[in-house]
């Protein structure tokens, strides 16, 4: 069992408070991703779990045991750093065996653990090489191998793919996910890339300015963001959001914006005249002939092969649509936008909270 628990965690750097009372639990074997923009406190939270930062307030527990006062080496964790942090003067094999060497483990155990990790990560041919002789992806695998050898209760990843090129990042994402499925070790993974979060996580913790905005499975966050920040942060291309006013007339509801009436889901709460943010994802709109739905004008067409991203303008507001396949639309062409009303997201303009 290796559950992790954050209980009212606070962190101050001098007089500046950077983490404001964060609480959540991670179940044994879960892959949880902490995601958020730079400066939101996700790395700080991870480092407090690792024992690399002092905890200003609250408790962190692993398997029910509070670990605040334990040294990093006594917490039974292993960490993979953004810059790999491989020891340059040691070979790959020595890097991976280092933690066991410090514990004075016998050679048989060391060879067995290193061999097993090397096999999982395909590092057998590289054991005698030095880090400077490896590519970025290989170094990252060695860093993961070093973590695996420790056989920890929790894996910690601190933006491990940020230093890799886009193609390698995609490949390594799959490797890390497959590793987790194989080893089933509780994993806490920090990234600023919401696509990494969406593709890898069992649950995502969206952080912003030192607080947790929302916790949920990737699809929960995608389909039901609880506030405007989460709605705009999760999903690529980002959700289209604009300001409008909610109107009610008996049973009928709509949003007035840009001289048009925009459909809203039947479950919407909120008063007549309430200032709202109207959100609709690029994939939840259809482009039809002019005269149907909302009138719009095509601005830019970006074919990406399997899909086409189209930027249209309604009044002064730009919208991004994602269509499957190709289109024969042209710039400056007038079109009609059909909105999937069940996928509309409304947020109160005052506090950003979800209205439906």
């Amino acid at each position, binding site marked *: 069992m290796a559950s992790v628990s954050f209980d009212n965690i606070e962190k101050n750097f001098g007089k500046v408070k950077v983490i404001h009372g964060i609480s959540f639990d991670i179940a044994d074997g879960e892959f949880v991703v902490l995601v958020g923009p730079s400066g939101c406190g996700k790395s700080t939270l991870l480092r407090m779990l*690792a*024992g*690399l930062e002092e905890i200003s307030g609250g408790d962190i527990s692993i398997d029910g045991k509070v670990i605040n006062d334990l*040294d*990093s*080496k006594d917490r039974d*964790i*292993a*960490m993979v*750093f*953004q*810059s*790999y*942090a*491989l*020891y*340059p*003067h040691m070979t790959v094999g020595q890097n991976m065996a*280092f*933690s066991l060497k*410090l*514990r004075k483990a016998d050679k048989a155990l060391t060879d067995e653990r290193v061999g097993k990790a090397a096999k999982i990560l395909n590092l057998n041919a590289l054991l005698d090489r030095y880090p400077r002789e490896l590519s970025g992806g290989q170094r990252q695998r060695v860093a993961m191998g*070093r973590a695996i050898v*420790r056989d920890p209760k929790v894996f910690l990843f601190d933006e491990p793919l940020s230093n890799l090129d886009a193609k390698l990042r995609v490949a390594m994402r799959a490797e890390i996910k497959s590793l987790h499925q194989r080893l089933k070790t509780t994993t806490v993974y920090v990234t600023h890339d919401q696509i990494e979060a969406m593709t890898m996580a069992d649950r995502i913790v969206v952080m912003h300015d030192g607080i947790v905005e929302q916790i949920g499975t990737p699809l929960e966050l995608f389909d039901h963001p609880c506030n405007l920040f989460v709605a705009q942060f999760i999903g690529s291309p980002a959700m289209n959001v604009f300001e409008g006013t909610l109107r009610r007339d008996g049973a009928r509801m709509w949003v007035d914006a840009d001289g048009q009436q925009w459909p809203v889901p039947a479950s919407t709460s909120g008063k007549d005249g309430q200032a709202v943010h109207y959100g609709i994802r690029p994939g939840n709109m259809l482009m039809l002939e002019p005269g149907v739905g909302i009138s719009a004008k095509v601005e830019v067409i970006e074919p990406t092969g399997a899909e086409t991203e189209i930027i249209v303008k309604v009044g002064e507001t730009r919208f991004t649509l994602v269509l499957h396949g190709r289109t024969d639309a042209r710039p400056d062409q007038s079109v009609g936008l059909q909105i999937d009303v069940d996928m509309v997201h409304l947020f109160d303009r005052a506090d950003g909270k979800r209205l439906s």
Partner: protein
Amino acid sequence: MKRAWSLRKVSTEAQLLLVGIPVLIWTMIPVYHLFLFAISPRDKATSGRLWPENPTLQNFEFVFGQKHFYLNHFWLQLGNSLMIAIATGLITLFIATTAAFAISRLKVRGGRTVMNLALFTYFIPAAFLAVPMYKTMATYGLLNNRWSLILAMVTIASPYCIWVLKQASDKLPWELDEAARIDGATPLQLFRLVYVPLMVPSLVAVGTYALLLAWNEYLYGFLLLSKETDLPLAVALGNFLSADDSPWELLMATGFIYALPPAAIYYAFKRYMVSGLTAGAAKG
């Protein structure tokens, strides 16, 4: 265009040579003069010739055979020089390495104060400190003991060495320490297994610097040591000049021999000397 570029390149080279050649000559003339004396017979040493009529290695024979009053303890004094220089190098290295590790990696409180104090000690020239140093060694009963010179040289060399090593340490990535801590390293293990191996070029540079500083020291050796058998060779060479008819050719031959070990050490470690000292010069 190609001709103009070549002309500019040649003129830059010519300017550099105009400065370089005189500096080289200026530096090498005394060394050449020294060598000239060392291979000249006694009566012909000051003849003013560019190359002696009958160059001889007899002077070196005298020196190695300790065949002169002033050379009675040549080998012993050479040994003293070696012992003092090596001891100074090693002790300074130990002090500077551990201090730099504590200040840079362990971030102990007062680290910056130590660094500033270290540089502050160089505001006062070493020569001014000679008399207070003499008094201090007398207080500790270390006069006429080779350890007085070793400790004095360590005192003079350490501040600079701490400063250079601390700057070089700052260039090591922080994540290495963190990774080692998570792997289970105590501070001592971190020092021994991660820090020192990665600092080797800087350590070689700093150790060599301290060693050569002690090797070339004259003033402190002259003040703190008086027994002939305790003197380093650099100080013993000074005694050559105490008589009216000093054997210049023997002095120069001894001096030439004395200059060979540092030249060899410097040549062997020149790669580290440049990289190791400049590693502390500019933050990466």
